[in-house]
């Protein structure tokens, strides 16, 4: 087991390093943005003195590297700092948004992952059947439509015409779990349509790829039924690519849902990020970017670990 722990530790260290580099790049990026928060907040009416006073107040007059180091120091101590725009604690500001984003990702994942894997396995099982072709065309179409278009169509059908679901996900912390789920269904469904195709196709491809392996032929020649061959012989070996594609899509569900947030007025992290970039609220951009990057790195890390766990060569060395 120790070698696995070492591998995990190595990846973790690499992840932290990546995170550091990401924070640096984001910081520099925000530094390069034209204008700063004082201008964004004070507007054209700002006199040079007020801008200077404001910048002093926000410690923006310090050289960039000092600000970065101070910020990094805070992070290490678990302090994300305050929003420059409204002086709120970023942890508090982001906490709710992160929760919402994760909730949406969770609901979408709960719907889409079993669906995608199931469809993918069935498609591999009944390769080239009518079912396979139908699913293929359907999923292809669903990724071919732009996300916002899918969202609008869903709204038109389910909210405007049928009236089953609300057209905006006006969720708040006072809502009960099922009420939250109810209000999250529409964005989750949109995301599901977007990610299912990718995952399903990869599952199908990964399994079909293995069907040419000699051990699958061997299993066939042992007289095993097709379903058992797929589930017991192909699937375990296809897990690594499947895990990878699932993780990529999970990352997408967390990081890439801004459009869905906009259309369904879902208060997630993406919207927070866009707002923060607009106002040049550097600490918020930094913190949000870091959370996104961390999510990505963490997910990749878990994909790596899971791949190791499902690979007997690594799990049981000679």
């Amino acid at each position, binding site marked *: 087991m120790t070698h696995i722990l070492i591998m995990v530790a190595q990846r973790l260290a*690499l992840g932290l*390093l*990546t*995170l550091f*580099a*990401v924070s640096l*790049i*984001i910081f520099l*990026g*925000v530094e*390069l*943005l*034209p204008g700063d928060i004082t201008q964004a907040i004070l507007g054209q009416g700002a006199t040079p003195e007020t801008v200077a006073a404001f910048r002093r107040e926000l410690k923006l007059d310090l050289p960039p590297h000092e600000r970065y180091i101070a910020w990094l120091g805070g992070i290490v101590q678990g302090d994300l700092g305050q929003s420059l725009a409204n002086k709120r604690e970023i942890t508090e500001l982001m906490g709710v948004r992160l929760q919402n984003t994760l909730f949406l990702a969770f609901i979408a994942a709960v719907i889409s992952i079993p669906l995608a894997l199931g469809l993918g396995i069935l498609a591999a099982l009944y*390769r*080239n059947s009518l079912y396979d072709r139908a699913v*293929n*065309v359907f999923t*292809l*179409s669903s*990724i*071919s*439509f*732009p*996300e*916002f*278009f899918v969202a*609008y*169509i869903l*709204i*038109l059908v389910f909210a*405007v015409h049928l009236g089953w679901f609300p057209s905006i996900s006006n969720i708040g912390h006072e809502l009960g779990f099922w009420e939250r789920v109810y209000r999250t269904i529409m964005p989750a469904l949109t995301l599901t349509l977007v990610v299912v195709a990718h995952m399903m196709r990869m599952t199908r*491809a990964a399994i*079909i*790829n293995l*069907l*040419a392996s000699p051990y699958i032929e061997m299993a066939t020649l042992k007289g095993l039924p097709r379903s058992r061959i797929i589930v017991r012989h192909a699937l375990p070996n296809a897990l690594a690519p499947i895990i990878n594609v699932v993780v990529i899509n999970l990352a997408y569900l967390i*990081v*890439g849902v*801004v*459009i869905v947030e*906009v259309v369904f007025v879902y208060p997630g992290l*993406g919207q927070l*990020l*866009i707002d923060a*970039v607009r106002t040049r609220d550097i600490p918020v*951009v930094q913190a*949000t*970017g870091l959370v*996104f*990057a961390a999510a*990505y*790195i963490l997910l990749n890390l878990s994909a790596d670990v899971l791949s190791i766990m499902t690979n007997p060569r690594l799990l049981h060395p000679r």
Partner: protein
Amino acid sequence: MRDALSLLRKSPWSARFGLFIVFAYVFMAVFGPLLTPYGESEIVGFEYEPWGPEFLLGTDNLGRDMLTRLIYGARNTIGIAFITTVLAFLIGCVAGFLAAVLGGWTEQAISRFNDILMAIPQLIFALLILTIVGTSVPVLVVVIAVLDSTRVYRLARAVAMNIVVMDYVEVARLRGEGLWWIMRSEVLPNALPPLVAEFGLRFCFVFLLLSALSFLGLGIQPPTADWGSMVRDNATLITFGDFTPILPAASIALLTIGVNFIVDWLLHKTSGLKDG
């Protein structure tokens, strides 16, 4: 040429359909100005005129001919998506091949840098750069290409890794061939099939990303016709059951489906797996 024709004869209906779609679009994109009755942003009538003999698909919110805009949209959107994808592949493939051929520290350095780029959410990246430099077509192309090249890099490196262990690459190394030769003459031609398939897919993604950016107001800017912003401009109409915004979205979808059909076929051909 004969090979291509015989290949085509043996292709399944889906691939032929895809090829037909793609050729039709390319034809439209190339010969757009000759096909359209009006200019790209020429105001020819009143706003939202219905479908009719004068304006086959009606007019848009400014009274421009919808059909004309659609055709120009094909030209602009496909053109930009194509250039972007080519650039992304150029960057991704060169980096990926370099990493695979050189190995060692070079590979580590490029791969780690790629990891970092991938860890930064695409959206932040696009947002930051488009805000810093301003939204113009060249910037858009470069930004999306760089973002996309990280994905291309992964594939290119993986594919090239399988090629550089081949004996013929070793032969070239033993002969004393330079890096460039190995990348261009030994690796590239053999990496082409999966890369071409990926090209199709990435082209679609770029295409969708462009429309997504347009939707967020960061994409191709008006009055240039592009399908993404055409959808957005008219999105509220969907609520009222109007067809207009569906046309460009359907155009996007149709092309994506067409390309994917071809990709599926290519992948099927190159995977060596014969369906029994």
